[in-house]
């Protein structure tokens, strides 16, 4: 980037996990045959009126508080007017000048250390439906509309332009996702669209305090896409400026396949949404006692949990931050601790073997292919010397793919550790006899030779020999020579 710096702000949409929609009693369930999760109200039929789902306001307050926002005493809904077939009323009920929550922040770890990213506002709105085209949008003779998603409650969370790299933007989005998941109001699944992200990007000469002209980037459907799109767009803007050009204020869409951002519409073509107060809904008056009640219900948030892991469990701050990065992982970790109270061992397994297998198979920890209780049993088997730590990894892989109990796998595969002294000493003697050179080397002071001999014992016992005992017996037998 050289002499340029980027300025990035994110607008994030989060679908709330209420049972019913924001202004009617239709279900919010994901999927379903097209147009089955609808009623006259969310279809916007002539004559219908919206009624606010109180749970949505409560969830909004919850997220506002979790993001250190002030909660409005007086808030209201507004109509955002624009025509699109997925919007049955041709206006969206949203919030304009009096959002539910405002003026908050969250903290991310960045290259420069801990950094605070401002939250400008959190507001409530209704989701639109989904268009289904025959072929592509350009060639289709007609399109279908599915209104199941219409009226599903959304929170829009707008950050300050406080991020200066794609990595920071990703860190912000990850942290935001974690915090919201902790509050339990949303699944935040980017692939199902319950977490969506647009970005405002501009660049300016390093050290400048003036903002450059920004572009808005849409259609980034994964964390990877966010990083790639931002990196591309920052580079594109720098190139334009270095070539003596000017940035045009516009909306651009990320083309995943080609790896480029493409202009969608310029500022001149931007909609005039003609916002005005929604006359069908009285303003929201939010009492401090309600806010306090919601505050009391707030679960422990990532920051606090991380501190607890460091202070109470003696984990490193890095381990604590990895374990608390999602609520599911932290919950898994603590549940495992309830069966096997050794934080460091459990942390190593969760962040090591479990994370590795989850990553490799693309399975979410919430699916719990190995339950915390099962992992705890495995760790106990190691402690009791039934299996070695090395065999345990093999057993764990088997547990992960079959869901079987560790004990069962060990029995079925005959993996029980050999700790019988007579049996082990016989093998040890055999190995020493078969490798006189190594034995001599060891006696001559070459410690390395012992490792080779241990390896040979393991090989002969197919890894089942108790490594501690093997070591002990080898040394004893070798000194007898």
């Amino acid at each position, binding site marked *: 980037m050289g002499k340029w710096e980027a300025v990035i702000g994110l607008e994030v949409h989060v679908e709330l996990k209420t049972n019913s929609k924001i202004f009617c009693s239709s279900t919010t369930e994901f999927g379903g045959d097209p147009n089955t999760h609808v009623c006259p109200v969310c279809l*916007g039929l*002539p004559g219908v*009126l919206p009624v606010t789902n109180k749970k949505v306001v409560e969830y909004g307050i919850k997220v506002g508080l979790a993001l250190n926002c002030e909660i409005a005493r007086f808030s209201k809904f507004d109509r955002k*007017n624009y025509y699109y077939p997925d919007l049955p009323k041709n*206006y969206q009920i949203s919030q304009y000048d009096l959002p539910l929550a405002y003026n908050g922040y969250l903290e991310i770890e960045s290259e420069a250390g801990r950094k605070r990213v401002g939250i400008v506002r959190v507001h409530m709105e209704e989701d639109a439906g989904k268009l289904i085209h025959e072929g592509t949008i350009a060639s289709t003779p007609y399109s279908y509309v599915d209104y199941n998603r219409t009226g599903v409650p959304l929170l829009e969370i707008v950050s300050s332009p406080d991020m200066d790299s794609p990595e920071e933007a990703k860190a912000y989005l990850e942290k935001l996702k974690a915090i919201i998941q902790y509050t339990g109001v949303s699944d935040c699944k980017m692939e199902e669209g319950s977490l969506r992200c647009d970005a405002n990007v501009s660049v300016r000469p390093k050290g400048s305090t003036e903002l450059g002209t920004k572009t808005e980037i849409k259609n980034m459907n994964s964390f990877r896409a966010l990083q790639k799109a931002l990196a591309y767009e920052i580079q594109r803007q720098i190139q334009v400026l270095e070539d003596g050009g000017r940035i045009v204020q516009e909306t651009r869409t990320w083309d995943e396949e080609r790896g480029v951002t493409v202009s969608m519409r310029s500022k001149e073509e931007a909609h005039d949404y003609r916002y005005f107060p929604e006359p*069908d809904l009285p303003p929201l008056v939010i009492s401090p006692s309600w806010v306090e009640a919601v505050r009391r219900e707030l679960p422990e948030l990532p920051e606090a949990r991380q501190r607890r892991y460091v202070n109470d469990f003696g984990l490193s701050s890095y381990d604590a931050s990895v374990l608390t990065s999602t609520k599911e992982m932290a919950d898994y970790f603590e549940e495992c601790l309830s069966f096997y109270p050794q934080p460091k061992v459990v942390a190593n397994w969760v962040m090591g073997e479990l994370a590795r297998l989850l990553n490799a198979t693309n399975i979410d920890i919430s699916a719990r292919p190995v339950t915390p209780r099962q992992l705890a049993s495995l760790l106990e088997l190691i402690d009791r010397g039934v299996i070695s730590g090395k065999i345990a990894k093999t057993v764990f892989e088997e547990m992960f793919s079959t869901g079987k109990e560790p004990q069962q796998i060990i029995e079925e595969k005959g993996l029980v550790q050999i700790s019988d002294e007579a049996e082990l000493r016989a093998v040890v003697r055999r190995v020493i006899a078969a490798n006189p050179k190594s034995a001599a080397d060891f006696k001559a002071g070459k410690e390395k030779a012992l490792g080779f001999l241990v390896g040979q014992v393991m090989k002969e016992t197919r890894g089942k020999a108790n490594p501690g005992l093997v070591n002990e017996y080898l040394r004893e037998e070798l000194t007898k020579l």
Partner: protein
Amino acid sequence: MELYEFTAHQLHNLLLQRKISAEELCTSIYQRIAETEEVVKAYLTLTRDQALAQARRVDQRLRAGETIGPLAGIPMALKDNLCTKGVRTTCASKILFNFIPPYDATVVSKLDREGAVMLGKTNLDEFAMGSSTENSGFYPTHNPWNPDCVPGGSSGGSAAAVASGEAIFALGSDTGGSIRQPAAFCGVVGMKPTYGTVSRYGLIAFASSLDQIGPFAKDVTDCALVLNAICGRDSMDSTSVIHELPDYTSFLVDDIKGFKIGLPKEYFAEGLDSRVRAVIERAIKVLEDRGAHIEETTLPHTRYALPTYYIIAPAEASSNLARYDGVRYGFRAEDAKDIIDMYSRTRSLGFGNEVKRRIMLGTYALSAGYYDAYYNKALKVRTLIKRDFERAFEKFDAILSPTAPSPAFRFGEKTDDPLTMYLSDIYTLAVNLAGLPGISQCCGFVDGLPVGLQLIGRPLGEGTLLRIAYTFEQSTEHHRVRPRIGKGVA
């Protein structure tokens, strides 16, 4: 006397005494419709089979000795902007010519539960935008007192139906005078209740912050009975207010001694037809004779009511009517090139001129750069207008004025100049901006056309209005005079 000449409370007694059956009553009103509808054209849709079935259910209950409510078996009509499940609801617009709602408006369910018999859906100015019913997308309705004259609007069909005996009572909607002005033109009682008293769920919106459903009736007693049936908090309408629902008939007291009534001088100024003024002055005399204290007052921001209304109402309408785009229901223009073309052709062909005019006015008023100068300013003036009334009600129990500056005008008289047409609601608009209740009743005639007396009340002051109107009715005979149309006198 023919059955169509009776009031609902009279017919209720005849039903209770088993002198008539609900089915007979229903049939006889359809007969009346057959006689006069050719001239009046009050209805857009008739629902005879459904009505007879409903009437027979009431007869069954009567035969079984069950008690029935005061509106059971009473034939009535609904303005065609009230959604009726399974029955075409058009708003008198081509854009909804084939729209059949899958649900009932709250007032429709309420009347249905009362056993009231819906005869059909009445004509209106398209989307309730107008003051003469000439803006109907289908055909105009005629004034039963003089078919060359308009019945008023926008609820002209409902007013004309009740006046001509084609319905015993009816529901309309009032956004700026759309119940009271046609009630005045047709010589019936029409009431716009306090904003939020009647659920708007199922009323096809024109201007959400101003719309209110209300009754047309032959007398004040019927008006109170219908209010009893339709008022009340509804969980489907967030703007419906929570309050203890009174028995509105308890206000039917023939006594207004000591009542203080204000006459806003701005409502008796230039533009008021002198013959109308004379009729109103005689009515004032009647009320004074009955013991009311009447004196002049002022509503200083009156002259801003019309411009304020014509910013707020179109602004809300421009958004409310955005959904009529041909995508999901109603009319869709054929052979569109693309989606934008489909929208624009559908709306160009589907909406009439007045509707388009107001959509454009409203879109303009809400546009970036104009919002503060128009919409926001209008909201502020609306508050001032509300305060005018609050101040007046510190002193007065009710405010009295003509309902309209003139009696019913002739077809085409005001269609060339929208502003002249808008002025026919000059005395009624402010009441909607302030969210107050208003009632219009017949207080005399000019050239054989009825003149309406408007009473405006405090928020939730319907009772006071009913009491004054009832006392006036007991002291006069105007409400008994019916237009000569068809074979008999309605």
